[in-house]
């Protein structure tokens, strides 16, 4: 392990890291790209008018839940709370109004995703759909269609129990767009660095180790940074809130120490192979310079391919030949 942690102190790393700090992107700090390695057949470009309501959204058969069932359950659930469940439904709105609602919902979902906030179905109903909740299903369907056709994104129900949605990229090939845009996303770089450190160590990374690495970038826990702001708050609170990292007390250690682990969202959105590519880019080494980690990454990639047979491989990633 010490060998590997030496790698992360590589002077090359410092140069690279310094350049990424200087090139801070003027864009909104967005965090890690929601790249999913799930297979999705590309939705063919549909005509200008969205398909009529009867057409189901272009979802792969590998979809986990039936959104229709979810919506029925949700509507039933809400009926218990809302006293208006019994009142006679209003006249169906004009199609144009449903279309408008679909557009509002589309934007709502896009902004939520941009802000890395949870897309929660009850919020969608409360904030956007409102009195049109009887037509929720068709609104949702139309929104999914538009998102797929125009943005190449799938509005996917990620958890039936918590009724959370996520926007998942439907385009092939998947890659770390933001890292590929030459380090213009400092937040991504920061997060990836911590995730890589954890991955390379093979277990949780102590906060002190993380700060050793961040010190190379000139980041200190007590100093405010022009791009990152309060770095400590960012990594111990915001990234944790967004489920990219876990920050836990190390048991049985006094005085108290904390360590970082991958968060559930990182595990979902970032593959080990992407980490290897990141390391390879940063250290200008072959990913096989970390042999056991590379093997793990290969196995994970294989497992993912087997789980999603429709996924075709040619990976146009910049780092591969």
């Amino acid at each position, binding site marked *: 392990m010490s060998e590997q942690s030496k790698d992360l102190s590589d002077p090359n790393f410092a140069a690279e890291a310094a350049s990424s700090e*200087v090139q801070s992107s003027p864009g909104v700090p967005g965090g890690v790209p929601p790249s999913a390695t799930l297979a999705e057949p590309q939705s063919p470009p549909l005509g200008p008018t969205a398909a009529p309501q009867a057409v189901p959204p272009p979802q792969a058969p590998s979809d986990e839940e039936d959104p229709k069932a979810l919506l029925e359950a949700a509507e039933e659930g809400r009926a218990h709370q809302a006293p208006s469940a019994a009142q006679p439904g209003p006249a169906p709105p004009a199609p144009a109004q449903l279309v408008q609602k679909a557009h509002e919902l589309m*934007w709502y979902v896009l902004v939520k995703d941009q*802000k890395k906030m949870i897309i929660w179905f009850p919020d969608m109903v409360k904030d956007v759909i409102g009195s049109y909740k009887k037509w929720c299903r068709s609104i949702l369907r139309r929104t999914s269609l538009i998102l797929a056709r125009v943005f190449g994104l799938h509005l996917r129900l990620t958890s039936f129990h918590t009724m959370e949605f996520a926007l998942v990229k439907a*385009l092939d090939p998947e890659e770390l767009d933001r890292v590929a*845009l*030459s380090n213009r996303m400092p937040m991504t770089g920061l997060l990836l660095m911590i995730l890589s450190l954890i991955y390379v160590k093979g277990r949780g990374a102590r906060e002190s180790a993380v700060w050793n690495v961040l010190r190379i970038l000139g980041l200190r826990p007590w100093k405010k940074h022009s791009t990152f702001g309060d770095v400590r708050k960012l990594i111990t609170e915001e990234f944790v809130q967004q489920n990219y990292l876990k920050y836990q007390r190390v048991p049985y250690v006094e005085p108290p120490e904390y360590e970082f682990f991958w968060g559930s969202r990182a595990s979902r959105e970032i593959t080990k192979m992407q980490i290897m590519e990141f390391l390879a880019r940063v250290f200008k080494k072959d990913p096989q310079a970390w042999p056991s980690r590379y093997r793990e990454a290969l196995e994970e990639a294989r497992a993912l391919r087997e789980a999603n047979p429709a996924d075709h491989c040619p990976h146009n990633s910049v780092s591969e030949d």
Partner: protein
Amino acid sequence: MQGSARRMGVMTDVHRRFLQLLMTHGVLEERDVKRMQKHCYKVHDRNATVDKLEDFINNINSVLESLYIEIKRGVTEDDGRPIYALVNLATTSVSKMATDFAENELDLFRKALELIIDSESGFASSTNILNLVDQLKGKKMKKKEAEQVLQKFVQNKWLIEKEGEFTLHGRAILEMEQYIRETYPDAVKICNICHSLLIQGQSCETCGIRMHLPCVAKYFRLNAEPRCPHCNDYWPHEIPEVFDPEKEREPGISKSNRKSLRSRRH
């Protein structure tokens, strides 16, 4: 839904990825947008010639038109950098930020916005904004908390802070120009040259017309004796430089970094 086939552009994966990335970034400078465009071509359509950015964006916008969203191009008021953002044309109120902020936070933004619009310089002081904390709708907010909320606005690129004073970020202007003009028709300032919303700028001391700094730069370029376009009086302010994207090539980067960028591309 409208969108006759003849006017519609065609969306390919190049465009879709571009849109995804633009949406993710929120607001981007032109040089980053161009780089991003090239990246999208590289990923999906290596052999195609990269469209001119303007045509590329117009093509996408023709598809977005029926959705009431648009890729808008603007120019930063202080130094004339071109920026792009995907904006929602339909909801023209501050509530377009509503997914992000609580009711009292939105109201704080509204109050700051009003102070900024009413101000002569386009800046509202932190003190003046914080003094309005008692008038906010929603949950009661302390001044300390309001300070942090203002910082959140800065981080999210809605406001810019300079020496304790706040003005609108280029992104906010892009997103909210229509709303601002509709809501504050009397207080709003307009640039005499480009006729867009003006928050920061220079004004003629005689007749009071105003111009954006980048508009001043362009209008008076190479002019030894700048005069007010309206009243012809001598223009008393320093004329800024026209923004030159070439000169701006990533000021923080030394040659070694550019080398490392290149080597990564093989």
